[in-house]
């Protein structure tokens, strides 16, 4: 601040503490002696040059935003190239910016750009993150920001990798919950599961299930209804659940213990690794088949 003189210093002293507010030119005119816009312009230029304010566009008008001392110091120490790179990364906010785009926008030589990025990263001004959508791209964003969901991929991703264990655990838990609500309590003595009568409306809905997951302390991750719905879809595709009551509620599919297996897959042929080669006159045939031998011995 010591490098500011006169009007510029006065403006900064008055407004520099309010970092959120955006100032238009009219807001700043009262500071100028005799409302002289000539002087004001000079002062603003000085502030801009030294990096105390930055220009933003609001509609058609330009507005000024004062920067914190920290940021000012940060940019002060940077070379012009680094400052340029920093600015671009900053403007990308939580989305991050791809190094290739950075190159075209800044128009810097690749080696210069790499050097700038390296110094900025060393100073912990920026960080490189991994995007779920484009795992191979190098994407940069400011050090103190957290990436958006689009970049991280939502609750299913841990370090840009799909967390299969987490998902499976949730799937099992939800299936169990829905199953427990899909069939009446077994009467003592009876062995078979009996169904609810037609028109039964007690099957859990999406919001029921979401609520249950929330209350069950299964996970710290915040799961929205859409996330739970995605899980339920998977369970439906797995043939474990099905939609009932016009698709609003979910019910577990009845599973029979010791259900009859497929004819063809139980016989050796259905699982035979050399089925395509098997031929009556060929080297592999029904008579010398080892799988048949094994299977027949299993009686």
């Amino acid at each position, binding site marked *: 601040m010591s490098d500011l003189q006169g009007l510029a210093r006065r403006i900064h002293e008055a407004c520099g503490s309010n970092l959120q507010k955006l100032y238009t030119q009219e807001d700043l005119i009262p500071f100028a002696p005799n409302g002289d816009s000539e002087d004001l312009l000079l002062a603003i230029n000085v502030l801009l040059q030294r990096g105390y304010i930055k220009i933003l566009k609001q509609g058609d008008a330009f507005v000024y935003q004062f920067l914190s001392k920290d940021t000012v110091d940060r940019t002060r120490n940077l070379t012009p190239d680094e400052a340029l790179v920093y600015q671009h990364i900053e403007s990308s906010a939580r989305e991050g910016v791809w190094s290739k785009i950075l190159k075209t926008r800044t128009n810097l030589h690749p080696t210069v750009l790499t050097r700038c990025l390296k110094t900025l990263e060393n100073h912990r001004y920026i960080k490189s993150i991994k995007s779920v959508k484009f795992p191979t791209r190098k994407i940069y964003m400011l050090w103190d920001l957290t990436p958006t969901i689009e970049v991280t991929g939502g609750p299913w991703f841990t370090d840009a990798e799909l967390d299969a264990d987490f998902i499976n655990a949730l799937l099992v838990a939800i299936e169990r919950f829905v199953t427990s609500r899909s069939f009446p309590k077994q009467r003592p003595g009876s062995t078979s599961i009996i169904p609810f009568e037609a028109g039964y409306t007690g099957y859990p809905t999406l919001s029921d299930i979401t609520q249950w997951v929330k209350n069950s302390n299964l996970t710290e991750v915040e799961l929205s209804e859409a996330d739970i719905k995605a899980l339920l879809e998977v369970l439906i595709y797995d043939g474990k659940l099905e939609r009932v009551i016009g698709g609003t509620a979910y019910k577990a599919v009845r599973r029979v213990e010791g259900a009859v297996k497929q004819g063809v897959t139980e016989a050796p042929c259905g699982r035979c690794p050399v089925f395509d080669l098997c031929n009556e006159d060929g080297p592999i*045939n029904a008579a010398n088949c080892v799988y048949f031998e094994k299977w027949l011995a299993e009686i």
Partner: protein
Amino acid sequence: MQQNAVELCTILVRDTYGELSSRVVAALLEYGRSTLHTIVRRAKIPERVVKQTLVVLIQQHLVLHYTNEDGGRDATHYECNWLQIYELLHSGRMVRTIEERFGSEAASVISNFLLLGHARVSDFITAYGISTKPKPNAVLPNGTTISASEATGTAPITTAAQISKHIITLMQAKFLIPVQVHHMHPSVDTENAIRQKVTTEQVGTAAALQARAKKVIDEKVAERMEALSSDIDNKNFGLKRKSDQPDGRARKRTKFSTSLLPEEEEWEIDGSIVLRVNNAKFLAIFRNEELVRWAESRIGKTTSLVYAELLRHLEKNIVGHRTEKGLVDGGKKSVVSTLDIGNTLRKDIDLVNSIASGPAITNGHKRAMANGHTTGANDEESEGDSDDYDLDADSDGDVGMNGTHELSSAAQEKKEQLQNIRKHLMLLAEDNNQFVTKQEGSMQYGGWTVDTQRLCEALRIRELEQIVEERFGGIATRLVRIIKDKGKMDEKGLADIALLRQKDIRAHLGTLHERGFLHIQEVPKTAERLPARTFYFFYFDEKMSKMAMLNDFYKAMSRILQRIDHERSLNSMLLSKADRTDVKGHEEELLTKKELADLTKWKRSEEKLIGQLMRVDRQVMMFRDW
């Protein structure tokens, strides 16, 4: 016709009718429609023998023939009816079905018809009359015989009247149908002949070529083709006089009551008519059995029993026509009322404790409804003074309880039973597969229909998914279901929906594609068609998957049959010894310990293999016939 099916059919014919027939069949299947000379050349068998073989095969409906009469010289072409050959596998199932429904005597009639292919009724009856020896044993394709006692039952048929009675019953139930001329011709030829006739009937030949006229002709041809088989839909087709008996079931009951005898004599079969077994009807029955099994696994045992009873009622009207679309039951769509089911359902089935009512709130609502029914029905039937009771009851606010006191216990029981049946049927109707469809109408307690074609479609898909699951695991099933649901999908989209990593699903997609369950469409992003710059969309084509599966099934069945042959040849010495007339029945005394052990082992493996064959057969029916 697939290569594997050819192999299977040849094996089946060889096992049943011997080497000669199988040579002829193989020549016909491999080269398609041929004339006598071509067959002789290809099968490398003397003409006289080929002729004899063809007669046998035609008698069995395994070979169809057609003579073109338009040219100067008549040329007869022969064609193999491979679906009929496949039916050889079903003979065991058929005999068993008839035995369950009509008793062992009817079963023996059917098994003899199966053996004969087709037969004139008078000849058939005479053959029975003369023969005093045990009936010829029905031979299954795998060589096991249905033992005489099993096929003919304990009480042997002694009089011609008895036989004709069984035949009439089976005819009315459409298990036996009269043979018509078009049964002996390939359907293409029949259609062509009709088309020719229709075309000449059209005014000018020039006009007939026009598109519109062509359409008219097509329609007429379809109409007449349908008319050909519609004769059979008539209930008493082939019978001389109409019967008063509503169905075979009622006849069976009256068999023992002398009072109804004169009525039975009112009608008889035309002795000169030629009968054959109606395979399509059996297919429909097998299909229904499968549907019941499915309902059992989805809902529960008791509900499936109710469903079986419902299907039994529908069954009576089924004639069964095989079409390209699948099995068509024939006749108009029939509705079964809850009352019908109630009349025939076994009384010892526990209808009440097999359904749980919902929690308290819905329970109350339900009870109110049930009471409504009870009182409503009560009003119609109750005697004069019951009204007073009802009024009293209303003031008490306990209508239902009073209603129960009102009725005689039997009527009340009936009512309760019907309501319980209705509950089970509602469960079936409400299932995602919609096993039955409720028909709103005047019928008390409601009427029900079954859309078998849609159900079989769903059944096939389920079977396919199960096969995928058992062969490739749960993740592959998940992927197939997603693709089926969403249409064409690329790997990334799939991974997103399945909540799996792309690299995890890649291997599964690969194997599924290799085995013909999934197919790929490539869409290049650029003109160069670089693999890296191409979208790969996976899609599921039910028809193609079905074909791939059937092909595998046929091959697996052939292998099982070949394996049985192999096992038999391994034990040939032992088996021929055990088959000797002096040894038969005295195995314990005349065979050594080792031989006995080997014999039981052989029997067990044969049983296991045949069991497996029948299970694959079930899947073939599901994918091809239903």
